[in-house]
Structure formats: structure tokens, C-alpha cells
């Protein structure tokens, strides 16, 4: 009975926090509700409470999701809304009737398009799309290879039509192989086996997704496999309610969708901060010594080696690594220098904080050093007390307490998909190196006599280029991820960026910055629209790595040049303040724009009369304008 009381209290705490508009507390109590209660009922409770709350009081990011399916998928709604809420999302749903997906996609006037979704999930079971491949008996007439090719073609056609009608992100399930095979143990030797046929269908789908913009595969087969097909499916509900996915699996599927949705709206984590003792290796280095820690071919050292490989894999994907450890720096240095079992090297970490400060202070220093917001940081520690300390001092940081046994660390790190993104750009893969370049530049800044001296010695070259196939993913990614130097924080999918480019009256350009320390890659995007007498900037953003180097002045000069070519008399711009874009707020003011009364109380409008001469490129940089 005591458990029930505390559940009741948690419900009240959750509702009270919602009413008070306290998102941090609501998230915290919502999370404990979902972990203590049977998940589905708690999800329903949270969903109803969130539905009743006033959205404007909570700073949730709204995302409109349409679910199209070949079966009844609506039992996922509560889990998707509740788990989305814990990720800071207000998920608004459109549910098509099962089997209505063709009509919804093909018909231009369908309710799907009227809903104006941000993301559309196309959840098809193989059994429904290619029943002959899944049947227990051998179908009479069928050439199953042809069936699969035809289904692949249909998916390609649906994707193409969808892309013509909508710029939303489309997520298509791939297909899990049938559980029971017609030929039993001989399936693997049959030609073509049922497993081969499904895998061929998945290959078709993979190609469709690779060749289009903003269409992605949800690895449903992988998800079913991770859970185990026998636990994933509920045959009773499959036959009775056309709802084949088991109750325990629904939240897993919702979590998988949320990985995509988080990436879509810029909530992908960028930095992993790690503890050392009993996290990267077993034992305490201060006690066991650099060679005495558990790390190497034997358990438990083998599990720590495996975990280090997973961390290294994240770094290779572009995640910035940092260390926050309570230790003597000399011991830690010695481990990196002399323990041959270490997979991670010291220079894999962009910031290392070893000392006796509170962990939250180290994490804050790391965030400040890297110039990234705390909500892009994941903090990992085996010690629950340290985890609590960081979670309370820095509620925006995602804290990941490790399970007691090291063999479960990899799962704990990778399962939530915090670092998943919708594309991996060259810049991602080089990110750690790019931060090193930035550190070198900052050193140069410190050594320089004046700012102008610094700019000159930096030898910057700024390249403005039209968006093309090689840069569209990076351009969209920057709009999704950039929070600080971003005047309007409008997010674009790849398809939406291309849509903007298609209008000849739009200026859509990427900004690449090179300096004496190397190529920083594409670090900025701007979008402007030209009308008869004006050019209006609606997007201007810059990666935090290159803030404070007058690149933004060059961007405005580029717009100014464009405006002059178009014969415009004025440049307009607006600032939409967010919790994070303080660095961008004085952009227009600093460059001599005049403030304007705005229709909205929340945003500030600015304009610059070009009769006064426009904006010049800073004289210390070389400017290259690629024309395509």
C-alpha cells in the first residue's frame, strides 16, 4: 500500500508542476512515474494531464506527427506523447485508419496533407504488404522475387509522390522476417528463402531512402530482433484487434520514433562527459595504480574495454568527449601514458577536468570551454551520488547513471540514442579536430595585441556557396542544431531547404570558413527573400565555433551585395529571442540597422536603408563567392 501512496503523490507532484509551468519538475516526476508504474498506465495518465495543460506555459517544442500504418498502431499514442513530453516535445498526432496509407499519400487533398505534419511514419508489416512472402503455405501462383520487386517499386512511388506533396520528414519501417519459416530448418538453403526475400525488400527500401531527401528507414527489423520477435508480437491482439505489437513493445517503438523526432528538431546531444574510475576502467586508480585498474582481456576488464570501444565509436561519429573525474591528475596522466589496454587516448578528449571540484562544476566548465549549452551534454557516471549532484545542479544536462555491472554499460550508453542524428556530415566526423582548431585560434586571440590584430593573423577565408546536393544535408543540420548564434531559430528539413533554393527570388547560401589552422567546414547558413524593393533575411546562423570573428559581418555584407544587385533599397531582418540565442540578438543593431515597430511583441524587426552605402566585408578576410 505504501507504494500506492507514493504513486499517488507522484501523480499530484506531476500535475502540480504542470499547472505551475515548471517543466524541470514535471519532467523529473514524470520520469519517476514512468519508471515505477506499469509504463502504459502511467503513459496514459501523463498524456491526459499534458492534454489538459496549457501549452504556452511550458516551453515544449511542438512537433506534428502523422501515423500511417497497415495495422492498428493507435495503442502507441499515449506512450509517444508521454515519452515525447519527457524529451521536451509536445507531440501532436494524426492517425490514419489502418490500411489507408495509400489513399492518404496519393491523394493531394487527403487529411494527411491538411494536417501539415512535420514528420510522417509509414508503419507497414511485411505480412500486410507482401502476404505471399509471409504465408505458412506455399502460394500457388507466385513469383516471389517479382512480388518483392513490385513492393519495392510501390514504396519508391509512394516516397516520390509524398515528396512532391509535402516537405515533411518521412520515416518508413523496414521489415522483420517471418518468425516461422515454410521450410523450417531448410529456409536458409532454399532459393529464395523467406529471409532472403525480406532482406531484398529491405534493400529496395534502403535505396529509396538513400536516394531521396528527408526520407529515412526506421530499422523495425533491428528493433524486433533486439526485443525478440516472440516478445515483440502479440498474436492474440493481431487477430482480435489487428494490433500485432505487444504492450511491452509499444514504448520501445515510441522511443525509436523519438530518436528521429529529437534529431529533427535539434535535440541531438553533442558532448559526452565521462567519469573515469569504475566507468572507463574498473577500480580506483588512486588506490590500484595505473597498471592495477581492471582493464584488459579478462573480466571485468574486458567489459570496460568494450565500453571504451563504444565511446570511441561515438567520437568517430562526431560526439565530443570530455572527462570530469575526481582524481590526482598525475595518476590519470599515467594511465593514458602507460596502460596498454586503454582504447581511448588522451587526445580523444577535447576537455579534461581532473581534480576535486564538484562534478557539476567540472561539467559547467566543460560546457563553457566548448561553448555548448548544458542541454547538449550527456553526463555518465557509475556513482549515483555524483549523478544526483549533477542532475540537481544542472537540470538541463542529461545524466546517465551506469548500471552496477560493467557488462551492461554499452547498452546503457547506446540504447537511448542520445547522439543519433539524421545525417552525418563531414563536419561531424571531424568535429573533435575542429574544436582543436578553435582552441588554437583562441590561443592566438589571447596572444594578439588587439582584436583587429587577431583577425588579421587568423588569415580567414570565407566562402559563400549555393546549396547543392553535397551540402544540403549539412545546411539542414545546421538549421536544426544551431541555437546560439541564430536570429530566428527556424528549423528546416533537407527537403525544405531544397524547396527554398528552388525559388529564384530566394538567396540560400552556406558559409565555409578557413583559417590558418585549417578548414572549419560549413559553419553558417543564411536565407533571404528578395521582393521588389527589399531583401528580407529570415535565417542567419553561425556555428558557435566561429562566433566572434566577424564572419557575421561578412554574411550581412554578402546579403547587402545581393540586395544591391537586385536593385533593392532596403534589407530587413528580425530577431526572435529564444532562451539560447543571446549572442545573436544585437546582430542588426551592431551593423547599423534601425529598429522597427513589430507586429509581434516577441520579436524585434530591423531594417537597413541601402542608400547609406550598405555593409562592407571586413578587410581582414578573403571572400570567395561561388556561383554554382
Amino acid at each position: 500500500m505504501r507504494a500506492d501512496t507514493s504513486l499517488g503523490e507522484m501523480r499530484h507532484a506531476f500535475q502540480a508542476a504542470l499547472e505551475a509551468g515548471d517543466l524541470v519538475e514535471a519532467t523529473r516526476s514524470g520520469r519517476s512515474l514512468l519508471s515505477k508504474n506499469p509504463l502504459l498506465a502511467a503513459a496514459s495518465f501523463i498524456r491526459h494531464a499534458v492534454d489538459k495543460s496549457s501549452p504556452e506555459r511550458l516551453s515544449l517544442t511542438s512537433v506534428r506527427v502523422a501515423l500511417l500504418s497497415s495495422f492498428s498502431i493507435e495503442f502507441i499514442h499515449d506512450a509517444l506523447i508521454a515519452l515525447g513530453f519527457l524529451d521536451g516535445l509536445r507531440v501532436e498526432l494524426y492517425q490514419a485508419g489502418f490500411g489507408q496509407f495509400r489513399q492518404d499519400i496519393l491523394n493531394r487533398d487527403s487529411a494527411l496533407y491538411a494536417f501539415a505534419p512535420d514528420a510522417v511514419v509509414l508503419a507497414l508489416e511485411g505480412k500486410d504488404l507482401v502476404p505471399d512472402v509471409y504465408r505458412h503455405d506455399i502460394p500457388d501462383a507466385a513469383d516471389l522475387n517479382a512480388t518483392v520487386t513490385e513492393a519495392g517499386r510501390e514504396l519508391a512511388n509512394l516516397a516520390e509522390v509524398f515528396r512532391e506533396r509535402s516537405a515533411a520528414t518521412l520515416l518508413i519501417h523496414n521489415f522483420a522476417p517471418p518468425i516461422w519459416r515454410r521450410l523450417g530448418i531448410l529456409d536458409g538453403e532454399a532459393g529464395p528463402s523467406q529471409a532472403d526475400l525480406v532482406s531484398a525488400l529491405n534493400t529496395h527500401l534502403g535505396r529509396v531512402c538513400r536516394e531521396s531527401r528527408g526520407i529515412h528507414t526506421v530499422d523495425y527489423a533491428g528493433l524486433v530482433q533486439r526485443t525478440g520477435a516472440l516478445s515483440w508480437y502479440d498474436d492474440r491482439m493481431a487477430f482480435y484487434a489487428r494490433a500485432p505489437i505487444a504492450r511491452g513493445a509499444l514504448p520501445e517503438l515510441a522511443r525509436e520514433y523519438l530518436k528521429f523526432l529529437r534529431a529533427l528538431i535539434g535535440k541531438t546531444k553533442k558532448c559526452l562527459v565521462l567519469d573515469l574510475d569504475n566507468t572507463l576502467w574498473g577500480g580506483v586508480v588512486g588506490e590500484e595504480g595505473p597498471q592495477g585498474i581492471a582493464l584488459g582481456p579478462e573480466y571485468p576488464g574486458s567489459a570496460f574495454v568494450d565500453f571504451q570501444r563504444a565511446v570511441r565509436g561515438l567520437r568517430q561519429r562526431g560526439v565530443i568527449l570530455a572527462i570530469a573525474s575526481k582524481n590526482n591528475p598525475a595518476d590519470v596522466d599515467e594511465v593514458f601514458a602507460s596502460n596498454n589496454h586503454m582504447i581511448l587516448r588522451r587526445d580523444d578528449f577535447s576537455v579534461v577536468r581532473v581534480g576535486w571540484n564538484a562534478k557539476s562544476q567540472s561539467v559547467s566548465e566543460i560546457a563553457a570551454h566548448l561553448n555548448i549549452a548544458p542541454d547538449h551534454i550527456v553526463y555518465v557516471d557509475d556513482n549515483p551520488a555524483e549523478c544526483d549532484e549533477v542532475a540537481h545542479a544542472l537540470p538541463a544536462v542529461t545524466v546517465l547513471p551506469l548500471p552496477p555491472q560493467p557488462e551492461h554499460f554499452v547498452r546503457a550508453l547506446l540504447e537511448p540514442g542520445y547522439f543519433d542524428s539524421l545525417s552525418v556530415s563531414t563536419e561531424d566526423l571531424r568535429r573533435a579536430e575542429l574544436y582543436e582548431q578553435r582552441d588554437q585560434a583562441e590561443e592566438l586571440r589571447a596572444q594578439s595585441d588587439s582584436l583587429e590584430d587577431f583577425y588579421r593573423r587568423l588569415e580567414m577565408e570565407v566562402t559563400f556557396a549555393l546549396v547543392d546536393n553535397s551540402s544540403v544535408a549539412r545546411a539542414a543540420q545546421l538549421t536544426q542544431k544551431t541555437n546560439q548564434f541564430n536570429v530566428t531559430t527556424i528549423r528546416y528539413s533537407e527537403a525544405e531547404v531544397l524547396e527554398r533554393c528552388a525559388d529564384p527570388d530566394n538567396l540560400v547560401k552556406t558559409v565555409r570558413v578557413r583559417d590558418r589552422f585549417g578548414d572549419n567546414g560549413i559553419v553558417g547558413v543564411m536565407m533571404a527573400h528578395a521582393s521588389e524593393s527589399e531583401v528580407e533575411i529570415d535565417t542567419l546562423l553561425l556555428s558557435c565555433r566561429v562566433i566572434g570573428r566577424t564572419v557575421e559581418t561578412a554574411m550581412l555584407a554578402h546579403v547587402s551585395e545581393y540586395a544591391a544587385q537586385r536593385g533593392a533599397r532596403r534589407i530587413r531582418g528580425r530577431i526572435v529571442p529564444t532562451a539560447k540565442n543571446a549572442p545573436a540578438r544585437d546582430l542588426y543593431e551592431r551593423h547599423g540597422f534601425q529598429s522597427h515597430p513589430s507586429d509581434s511583441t516577441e520579436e524585434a524587426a530591423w531594417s537597413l536603408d541601402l542608400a547609406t552605402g550598405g555593409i562592407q566585408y571586413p578587410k581582414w578576410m578573403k571572400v570567395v563567392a561561388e556561383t554554382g
Partner: protein
Amino acid sequence: MEQKVKEIMGDVLDLDPQAIDGHTAMDTIESWDSQAHINLCLCLEQDFQIAFTVAEIEAMLSYSDILRVLREKL
């Protein structure tokens, strides 16, 4: 058990658990539609760690029916 059932019904059907009694039935509660019914059964299964047959699902059309089916199974 009664308390737990009321709480789950409250969560899923968006009702005040205190207000649930012998008269609470699918016929009388607007939010208790066929989709919510499946949802409710799945939540009960998850909490009580049991599995209903389709016949049981079709029989649990009120708070008292649910208690009766649960008592038979537990």
C-alpha cells in the same frame, strides 16, 4: 486489488479513481470506447502480470466485471 484497478482505470480512461464504482461501465463512460478498452486491458495485464484471453477481454465491460475476471485469474 480494487485500489490498483481504480487507479489504472483512472489513468487510462481519464477518470477520478474515487468516482469509480459498481456503476462504472463501458456503456456509461464516454471515454471508455473500444480503443480505450484494449488499452485498459493491456495496462491491467502489465500491472498484474497476467494475460487475458479474448473471451475475458470481451467480458470485462464494467468495473465489477473486471474485478470478477481478475479474481478468477489471480
